[in-house]
């Protein structure tokens, strides 16, 4: 596959639909949405590709975990978004599988600017509403989501209002977990 292929066919419309899905899963932790429009090179999932095309550009450095840091992925991201590839400490976004994420090295934002933190796009082998219990803003009572673990998300929430935000992707589906969500 060539790096010039696999982008949005109609960028303004495809990105608008994709953003609504990303916004909905961020605002409603536990909700899973399907997205379409990107065909990124392996090992990127469709959903991860859609998120990158929708949110990343030259202003957002991306960290790639080793398995995702391939010439094909770099070329595809460079051509379609222009986002620079960076170290964890400079990352606006991080992309890769969960067990390779250096979670402790990403910026959490500052007390004055808690928005200046990394958003992690975590590729999961499975994504379902079968798993950890979620509470917090965006959830009326409780929700559930198949998180890869619990402790990291619990300690992340304790930094509030600083903290990391997560998008989980699997094939063409995605879910979100902002820093406000209490996981148990």
């Amino acid at each position: 596959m060539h790096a010039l292929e696999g982008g949005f066919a109609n960028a303004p419309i495809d990105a608008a639909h994709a953003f609504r899905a990303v916004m909905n899963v961020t605002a409603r932790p536990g909700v899973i949405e399907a997205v379409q429009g990107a065909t990124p090179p392996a090992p990127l999932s469709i959903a991860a590709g859609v998120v990158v095309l929708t949110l990343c550009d030259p202003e957002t450095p991306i960290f790639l975990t080793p398995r995702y840091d391939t010439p094909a992925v770099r070329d595809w991201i460079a051509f379609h978004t222009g986002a620079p590839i960076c170290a964890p400490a400079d990352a606006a976004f991080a992309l890769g599988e969960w067990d390779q994420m250096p979670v402790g090295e990403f910026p959490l934002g500052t007390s004055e600017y808690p928005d200046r933190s990394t958003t992690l796009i975590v590729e999961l082998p499975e994504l379902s509403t079968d798993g950890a219990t979620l509470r917090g803003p965006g959830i009326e009572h409780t929700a559930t989501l198949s998180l890869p673990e619990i402790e990291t998300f619990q300690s992340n929430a304790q930094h509030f209002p600083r903290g990391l935000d997560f998008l989980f992707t699997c094939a063409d589906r995605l879910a979100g977990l902002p820093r406000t969500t209490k996981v148990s």
Partner: protein
Amino acid sequence: MSDYNFAYLDEQTKRMIRRAILKGLAIPGYQVPFASREMPMPYGWGTGGVQVSAAVLTPDDTFKVIDQGADDTTNAVSIRRFFQKTADVAVTEATAEASVIQTRHRIPEEQMNAGQILVYQVPIPEPLRFLEPSEVETRKMHALEEYGLMHVKLYEDISQHGAIATAYAYPVKVEDRYVMDPSPIPKFDNPKLSMPAIQLFGAGREQRIYALPPFTKVVSLDFDDYPFEATKADHACDLCGSTESYLDELIVDDAGGRMFMCSDTDYCTSRRKAGHIGAQGVPYEEDAA
């Protein structure tokens, strides 16, 4: 249509706004700085709300705009037409039919549902601004959760007026953390801020975006002995007879004549269509105006 990018703004601007919206949703009540653009309307006419709407709209949406509850004021009509022209969206005046509602200073009377998005136009997003003019200082106050000054302000209201006199832009605390300005909605609307819909706030001149995810805990600031009270004019609507809705007072002649009517025009019209008639009302007729 071909003269504009979809929804007017260029894609890079929309990505920047979209990232700010996501961080806003992740930190409810925190004001995210964003690089507000010049819009083809003056500041104060909803440039922040328009930019948020532009970043959120898809061609499948049905869009509604209200200005202090009314669908038919200049500001509401021109913003609605702007997105009809640039985003090709369907428009409506019916609250229940809309998927995205941009609002200036009201929450619709009708209960919002989970499929909807409410976009607020915000003039001054910083609730502490009139107490502390320095952005450096107010940012530090938010960082340290130092909100004593706001309680002093409410206390001074009580000591001067015998009650909390703040009637609109009534400060709220979000998820026990950030004090937030809900935009100049009447405090009558404050209890509705915890709702099933996503709420996004855009301040164009002040370059801030903030947000409330659905069911976020939003508490109006008050004191144990002076609890928060959502007030409205003690009247029924003179057109539709509703005693539940927020009312506008209208001076109708130069002899002190006045009437009260629902500020939410869609709510009032729906009730009149359903046969409710207020003290000065007449039976509803299509295109009677």
